[in-house]
């Protein structure tokens, strides 16, 4: 069974190859069968291998399979090796399982699109790349997956290529993540020059022997890796590509820009946990970035009216929570939140996609309204997803994954009160914008006529995801709720336990406050958007509130800042030098030569007088020199 591991990534690759080479001559049904089938088979194999892994854990703690040696130059010898350990198993499960559901959904969603095969080919390639990323046993192979998902993200954001706006969003995403990728490449160079290897297990083993805690080198390596993670995971200061990435089809947003690719940074940092533990400054940076991002993105989410942009900002904010957890050393809590988030955020995006499709591509929530009774399946599943996002206490999975992060934010050794306060405020904001989104979309009066209702291909995945958005939380319960820790026990062989430090209040007070924050957020939104809309009008009259609203709405002005700082100067520089200043030097040389030649050609005038004159002058000069010297 275990030697089928290589099939997990290779099947989607095969799907990609078939679809891209023969896609034009295939019928839509067979395209869907290949596209969906390849990922579903991968999911099936994953589940089989996963069950095997749980029942009969391998002695080494991981399964690995080498296909061949990629490059061999001296001691630089990266192999094409897939390695499955508990951490990668969680990721592979999420990627293939949610990936398969989203593929099923897409088969219905993209039915009318003329580029059906291009869509499935790109999606399959994405799943392949993402699987390579999490299964790679060395950083070079990981980098291959890392760049591969970037490419697929580019292809799919710009899927509807005829609109230049989409092309712009796609390029923005690619280039901004490439900035992070380049930092990561430099990290790879540094790692190789110190460790003489890019094999992850080697690095993790050697790091504590080579470096003291807090050494400059290891701190720089960790910071560079972090920069890579920030780019892919859309964290401060490279976060502003993600809202624009919503230009892609909704299934793409669900799979790539919510559930999987954007969490690659979380995976990378968790995978290199030893390095971050050795570099406290870098790890603290991770926590600070996470905390700052979750707050900033949360405020922006409150101001958006495009339902997908609300979800995009919410994704940035939730990944901020994961980064915070990573920074606190609460490794398993981060991964748990990743998994739960993947379920409910994929669900929310798919449901939002269904709504948008039904309302004739209407993205504006304020033009929706009153969908509660018209689209009951969508409503209930969306509600469940929202409950999880808002971390509704006890009954939603989101509560069980977010609550530990809030608790560790203060009580862990690396935590403090500020982190906790930010996380709590974040929870409040999350509940507020989630509730706003639900109220505006589903309650009130209907503003847009609904079209064709989504079919069962689209609703079934929603139901499955809704089921997991509730149930998945119960595999990891807080300490005072029976202390049931199936998930973190499974991960602890690869991820260290969180070190507790600060003496604080008992855990139930934290839970109570988190619950209060959630309900507070819900209450505020209820007041503003349902009960008492006049309050909003009053707010709109205050100039401070509108200015703040605008500022948040535009994502805290990051786009404009980067435009002024980088884009404008670079284009300016490039444009003024379009004709290449260096070339002007050579043109100058040829210009001077031509002038000189013209000048000398005057002496060849053909006139005897001038020649005689020249002879005389020359003779005089020579004689003078003779006499003088």
């Amino acid at each position, binding site marked *: 069974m275990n030697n089928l591991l290589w099939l997990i990534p290779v099947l989607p690759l095969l799907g990609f190859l078939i679809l891209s080479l023969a896609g034009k001559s295939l019928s839509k049904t067979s395209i869907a069968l290949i596209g969906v089938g390849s990922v579903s088979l991968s999911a099936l194999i994953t589940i089989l291998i996963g069950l095997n892994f749980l029942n009969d854990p391998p002695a080494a703690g991981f399964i690995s399979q080498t296909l*061949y040696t990629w490059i061999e130059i001296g001691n630089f010898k990266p192999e094409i090796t897939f390695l499955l350990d508990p951490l990668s198993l969680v990721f592979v499960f999420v990627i293939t399982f949610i990936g398969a559901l989203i593929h099923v959904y897409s088969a219905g969603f993209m039915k009318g699109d003329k580029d059906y095969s*291009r869509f499935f080919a790109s999606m399959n390639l994405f799943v392949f790349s993402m699987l390579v990323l999490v299964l790679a046993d060395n950083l070079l192979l990981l980098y291959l997956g890392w*760049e591969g998902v970037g490419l697929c993200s580019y292809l799919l954001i710009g899927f509807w290529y005829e609109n230049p706006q989409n092309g712009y969003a796609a390029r923005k995403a690619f280039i901004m993540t490439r900035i992070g990728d380049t930092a990561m490449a430099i990290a790879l160079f540094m790692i190789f020059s110190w460790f003489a290897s890019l094999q992850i297990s080697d690095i993790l083993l050697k790091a504590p022997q080579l470096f003291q805690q807090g050494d400059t080198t290891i701190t720089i390596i960790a910071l560079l890796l972090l920069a890579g993670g920030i780019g892919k995971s859309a964290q401060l200061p490279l976060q502003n590509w993600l809202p624009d990435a919503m230009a892609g089809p909704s299934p793409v947003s669900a799979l790539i820009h919510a559930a999987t690719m954007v969490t690659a940074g979380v995976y990378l940092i968790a995978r290199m946990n030893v390095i971050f533990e050795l570099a406290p400054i870098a790890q603290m940076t991770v926590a600070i970035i996470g905390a700052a991002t979750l707050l900033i993105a949360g405020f922006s989410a409150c101001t958006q009216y495009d339902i997908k942009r609300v979800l995009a900002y919410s994704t940035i904010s939730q990944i901020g929570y994961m980064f915070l957890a990573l920074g606190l050393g609460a490794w398993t809590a981060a991964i748990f939140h990743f998994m739960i988030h993947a379920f409910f955020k994929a669900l929310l995006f798919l449901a939002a996609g269904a709504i948008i499709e039904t309302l004739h591509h209407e993205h504006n929530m304020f033009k929706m309204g009153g969908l509660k009774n018209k689209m009951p399946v969508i409503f209930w599943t969306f509600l469940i997803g929202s409950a999880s996002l808002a971390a509704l206490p006890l009954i939603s999975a989101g509560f069980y994954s977010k609550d530990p992060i809030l608790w560790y934010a203060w009580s862990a050794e690396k935590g403090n009160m500020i982190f906790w306060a930010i996380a709590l405020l974040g929870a409040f904001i999350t509940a507020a914008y989630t509730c706003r989104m639900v109220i505006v979309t589903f309650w009130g009066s209907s503003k847009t006529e609904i079209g064709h209702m989504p079919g069962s291909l689209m609703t079934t995945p929603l139901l499955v995801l809704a089921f997991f958005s509730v149930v998945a939380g119960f595999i990891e319960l807080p300490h005072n709720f029976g202390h049931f820790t199936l998930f973190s026990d499974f991960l602890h062989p690869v991820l260290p336990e969180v070190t507790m430090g600060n003496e604080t209040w008992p855990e139930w007070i934290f839970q109570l406050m988190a619950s209060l924050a959630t309900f507070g957020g819900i209450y505020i939104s209820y007041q503003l958007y349902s009960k008492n809309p006049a309050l909003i009008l009053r707010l709109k009259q205050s100039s401070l509130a509108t200015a703040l609203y605008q500022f948040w709405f535009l994502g805290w002005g990051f786009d404009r800042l980067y435009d002024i700082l980088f884009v404008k100067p*670079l284009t300016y520089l490039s444009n003024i030098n*379009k004709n290449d200043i260096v070339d002007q030097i050579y043109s100058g040389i040829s210009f001077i030569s031509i002038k000189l030649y013209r000048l000398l050609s005057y002496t060849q005038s053909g006139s005897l007088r001038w020649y005689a004159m020249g002879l005389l002058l020359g003779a005089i000069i020579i004689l003078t020199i003779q006499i003088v010297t």
Partner: protein
Amino acid sequence: MILVWLIGILMGGGIAALLLGQGNRGLPRWISLFTVLAGFLAVIYIWIDQYPITQFPHKWLIQYRSDWIPNFGITFHLAIDGLSLLLLVLTFFIGLLAVVCSWTEVKEREGFYYFNLLWILAGICGVFMALDLFLFYFFWEVMLIPMYFLIGIWGSENRVYAAYKFFIFTQASGLLMLLSILGLYFIHANNTGIYTFNYLDLLGTSIPENIQYWLMLGFLIAFVVKLPIVPFHSWLPDAHAEAPTAGSLILAGLLLKTGAYGILRFVLPLFPSASEQFAPIAMLLGVVGIIYGAILAFSQTDLKRLVAYTSVSHMGFVMLGIFALNELALQGVVMQLLTHGISTGALFIMAGMLKERLHTRDIDQMGGLWKHMPQMGAMGMIFAMASLGLPGLGNFIAEFLILLGAFEANPWLTICAALGLIFSAIYSLRILQKVFLGSYQKDTPVQDLVWRETTILASLIISILWLGVFPQPVINTVKPTVIFIEKIFHDQGIAQAYLDRNIIKPQVISKQKKGTYVRK
């Protein structure tokens, strides 16, 4: 003898095309096709045949040596090692594509056109094989003059200017090399009393430090003009833009590589201490080239000029890698020579195909072509991705190895060079957006690829994928050469490196002052 045949068949084919082309206009292209195909099959055969033994310490795989002008110590000496062999494979591969992509483009004076094309290839083959400096210089000129005609006769509007510029740049720098060759010749004669132009005899000549530096510069300038390195690059955009498609293809795919080959084969081994002294400046020049080329590429609107500037940027990586002087970087350099030839060559071929259809090279007048030519769009996507160094394609292996190796030699410059990765993404995606994406403006649909064009591009895609996924055969082939070069600068110093090769007789070694080149 097979080496002589490789050149001979090309030259003979060229003459045949010229003569027979007078009567039958369709004949020259067939002659050329078969000539180059025969050569291609021959070098592939040599590669497969020699592959098992390429992995042992450096030696010449095949040699041919006879006297040419014995009075002056000039020999007709051809030899190949792994490096030459790979570049020969590339030469015939690109040559083949050059013939095929000229198939319908050239409509006048076909005979003379194919004569020039084949003679350029012959010159390039000679450059990659010659082990006698005089002979090397001879071939260096052989590839120059037909190229001058190719640009000057079959180019586009501004062709005469471009051809002159190309000729003057290359010729002027070539003369510096000739001076250096003569200097080396006389110094060697002074030391040993033997007048010879033979590379193997000249290796290890002891040259006073300051003179060595100047001689090295003479060679180096000739090579970096070809490469090209900023600030000697300005002939390239003009030549590329004006040349016919096959001309651009050969320029980018092959001619630039002769510069890199020259540095690897001649500059480093002949002048090791001067090279080492110059290395930091050379690496800096490489980095400047990477960034300067990329920024200029971003602002260009002429597709061919744009691609030409990306070449400048990519060749900066070559310069950086060569003067990092270690195994990883040098392996990366060789890989870069091959992958750049393929990916940039492909972009030029596409520019040619677009020009045949749209009669313009201005990317502002393109856009939305994916709608009518999805096949070409997808292929363009792959080559743009290759150009920005996407893993899985050969260019990534090359750039990653170069940077990895260069990081050992000079971390700060390497970090600056890594910025090139971001810039390359910016300009590559701009090409895609401007040409294929967006909405299609015109009313008339354009024809997607025909099977001849599909074949050309598909063969290039397969090659670039192969190099990205299974690069090891190339790495193994060139390994002895690379290790030989690395050994000059590390471990034992030059004397030992030569002994290891079993090429130079021991007494030659004993003649030089001991320890002259041993690394301090």
